[in-house]
C-alpha cells in the first residue's frame, strides 16, 4: 500500500503546529538535547508516520504533541491553543477531549472487560451510563469487536487487544490519534489489519493520525512520512535521497 494522494478528507487547516521546539533531558550531569529547533505542521485529516532510529526522539515528539510532556523551549499549538502553557490538570482534561492514544503493548487494564476498557475515557465525561454504553458499542463495532465486548484482555489475541486499544482511543471522538508503534507487537498479517483500520479511521472518519513506527511497511500506510534525525524532522524522501 502506498500513501494516498488527493484524499478529500484532508483539509488545508493546520491542526497541530510545533514551532522551534527544543527538548532537553538531564541524564546525571549530562544534558541531552533530544529535539532541536523542530518545526512541524499537521493539517486536519492528515496521517503522518514518524520514523527514525531508536533514541532519535520520535516518542518524545509524540509526547509533546499529546500533551504528556512540555518542550524546553518553543511552542506547541493544537487548534490554535498553546497546550505547552496549560497547567497539569487542564492538560489532563485537554488530553481526555482531544487525544486518542494507541500504545505498542495495548496497555489495557487486565481486570476490566473489553467494553469496560473502552469505557474508561468516557468516565471523564458527563455522559450518562446508557450513553456511555452506546458510545462503547459503536466504538467496538467500528473496530469489529462487538462480539468480544465481555471478554477480558487475557481472552483476546494480540490483534484483538490492539483493536480494543483503538476502540478506547476513538470512543470519546478525539481530535486526533497518537499511535506509538501500534503494530510493533503484532505479526505482519495482524499488523496490516490494524494499519488498515487506522487508514479507515483516517479516510472514512476523518481522524487525524500521527503514528510512530520503525517499520517502513507500516509507514507506507500513512499519507506522508517524516523522519526524526538528530533532533530535527525531514520528509522521508529527503532521508532516502
Amino acid at each position, binding site marked *: 500500500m502506498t500513501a494516498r494522494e488527493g484524499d478529500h478528507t484532508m483539509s488545508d487547516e493546520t491542526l497541530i503546529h510545533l514551532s522551534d521546539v527544543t527538548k532537553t533531558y538531564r541524564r546525571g550531569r549530562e544534558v541531552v538535547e533530544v529535539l532541536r529547533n523542530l518545526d512541524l505542521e499537521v493539517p486536519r485529516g492528515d496521517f503522518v508516520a514518524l520514523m527514525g532510529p531508536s533514541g532519535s526522539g520520535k*516518542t518524545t515528539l509524540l*509526547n509533546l504533541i*499529546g500533551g*504528556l*510532556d512540555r518542550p524546553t523551549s518553543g511552542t506547541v499549538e493544537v487548534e490554535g491553543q498553546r497546550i505547552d502553557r496549560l497547567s*497539569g*490538570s487542564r492538560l*489532563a*482534561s*485537554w*488530553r*481526555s*477531549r482531544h*487525544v486518542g*492514544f494507541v*500504545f505498542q*503493548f495495548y*496497555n489495557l*487494564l*487486565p*481486570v*476490566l472487560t473489553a467494553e*469496560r476498557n473502552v469505557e*474508561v*475515557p468516557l*468516565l*471523564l465525561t458527563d455522559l450518562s*451510563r446508557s450513553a456511555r454504553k452506546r458510545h462503547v458499542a459503536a466504538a467496538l463495532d467500528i473496530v469489529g469487536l462487538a462480539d468480544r465486548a465481555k471478554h477480558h484482555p487475557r481472552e483476546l489475541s494480540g490483534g484483538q487487544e490492539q483493536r480494543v486499544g483503538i476502540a*478506547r482511543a476513538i470512543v470519546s471522538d478525539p481530535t486526533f490519534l497518537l499511535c506509538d508503534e501500534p503494530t510493533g507487537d503484532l505479526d505482519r498479517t495482524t499488523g496490516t489489519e490494524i494499519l488498515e483500520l487506522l487508514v479507515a479511521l483516517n479516510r472514512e472518519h476523518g481522524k487525524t493520525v500521527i503514528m510512530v513506527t520503525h517499520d517502513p511497511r507500516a509507514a507506507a500506510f500513512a499519507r506522508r512520512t517524516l523522519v526524526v534525525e538528530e533532533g530535527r524532522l525531514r520528509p522521508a524522501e529527503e532521508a532516502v535521497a
Partner: protein
Amino acid sequence: MIGAKYFPLIWKNLGRRKVRTVFTILSVMVAFILFALLAALRTGFTGGVELAGADRLITIHKVSLIQPLPASYEADIESVDGVVDATPATWFGGVYRDKRNFFPQIAVEPEEWLAMYPEYVLKPAERESWLAHRTGAIAGRSLAERFGWKVGDRIPIQATIWQRKDGSKTWEFTLEGIYDGAEEGTDTTQFFFRQDYLQEARAFGEGLVGWYVIRVADPARAAETADAIDAEFANSPAETKTTTERAFVQAFANQMGDIGAIVMAILGAVFFTILIVTGNTMAQTVRERIGELAVLKTLGFTDGRVLGLVIGESLLISGLGGGLGLLLGWATVKNVDAGSILSAFYLRGVDAAFGIGLIAALGIVAGILPALRAMRLDVVAALRRG
C-alpha cells in the same frame, strides 16, 4: 472528586490479588470485631456513668458507703430546699445457691423506688403484686434470664450480713415481677425487695438504711443542693457525703482502674498494626500498577482523580473489613451473656459511629502515601518503563 461511576474500576482492582485482598480485609475485620467487643466492655464498666440520672443525687455516710445512715434522715433530706423526693436503699449482699452467682440485691421502698427510677419498666399488674406482698421482689430481665426465673418463683437467698431475728440466714422472696430497661444499657441485673421486709425480719440494724437516692428540682443546682444536704447533717453522729449519681457511679467504676484508658491503649496498638498492614497492601498494589496508572493519566485522568481512585480503593478495603467487623462484633456482643460480670454489655450508638469514623480514617491514612505516589507519577517515565 470520585463519583459512583468509578466504583466498578475500583472494585475490579480489589480482585487483582484476591488472596492478599481477602487477608487484608480479614485483618481489618478482626480489628473491628475487637473494637466492638472492647467498646462494649468499656460500656459495661463505665456506661452506667452516662445513663445515671442527671437529676439524682446519692447521699452516703461520710466515712464510707458501708456505714449505715438513720432512716429518719429521709424526712430531713426532703425538707432541704431543692429536693423533690428522697428514698432509702440498703445493700443486702446475699448469696443465691453459690458465691459465684453474684448479683446486687437491694432493699428499697417499692413505690418510691419505681418513681425514682422510671427507667425500670414493670408491668402494672406486677407492680401491684409487688406492692401487695411484703416478701415480694422484682428482678431485672437479664438476671431473671440468667437463672431461668419466672414470676411466682420462690427465691431463697443466704444472708451474709443480715441475719434474721429467728437466727436463720435464709431469706425467701417471691418473684412478683421482672423489669425491663427503658433504654439499651439500663442495668437489668439487679434484684430489688422491700425495705419493710428487711426492717422487720433482720436481727439488728433497726432504723438504719444504706444510702439515699434523691431527686432534685434543678439539675443545674445539684452541687448546691448536695452541699445543703450535707450541711443539714454536719456535726451529727452520722455525717453525710452527697454527690451526683453520675459522680457516684464514676467513682465506683474508677475503683477498677481507668478502663477507658486501658481499652484505648489496646485499640491503639491494634489499629497501628492494622494501619501498617493495610498501608502495605495499598503500597504494593500501587507499585504493581504504575504502568496502568500512567495509562489512566495519559487518557486524561487528573492527579486528583488518580489520588481519589487509590484512596477509594483503600476506603473500600477498610470499609468492607471494618463494616463486617463492626457487624460481627455487634452480633457477638448481642449474643454474649455478660450479665454475671457486667451490668451492661452492648455496643453504644456513639461507639458504632466512632467505629465508622475509624473505618474512614483507616482507609484514608492507609491509602494516602500510595495515593500521593500515584498522583505524582511521571507519566512519560512510567510509560517508558512500560
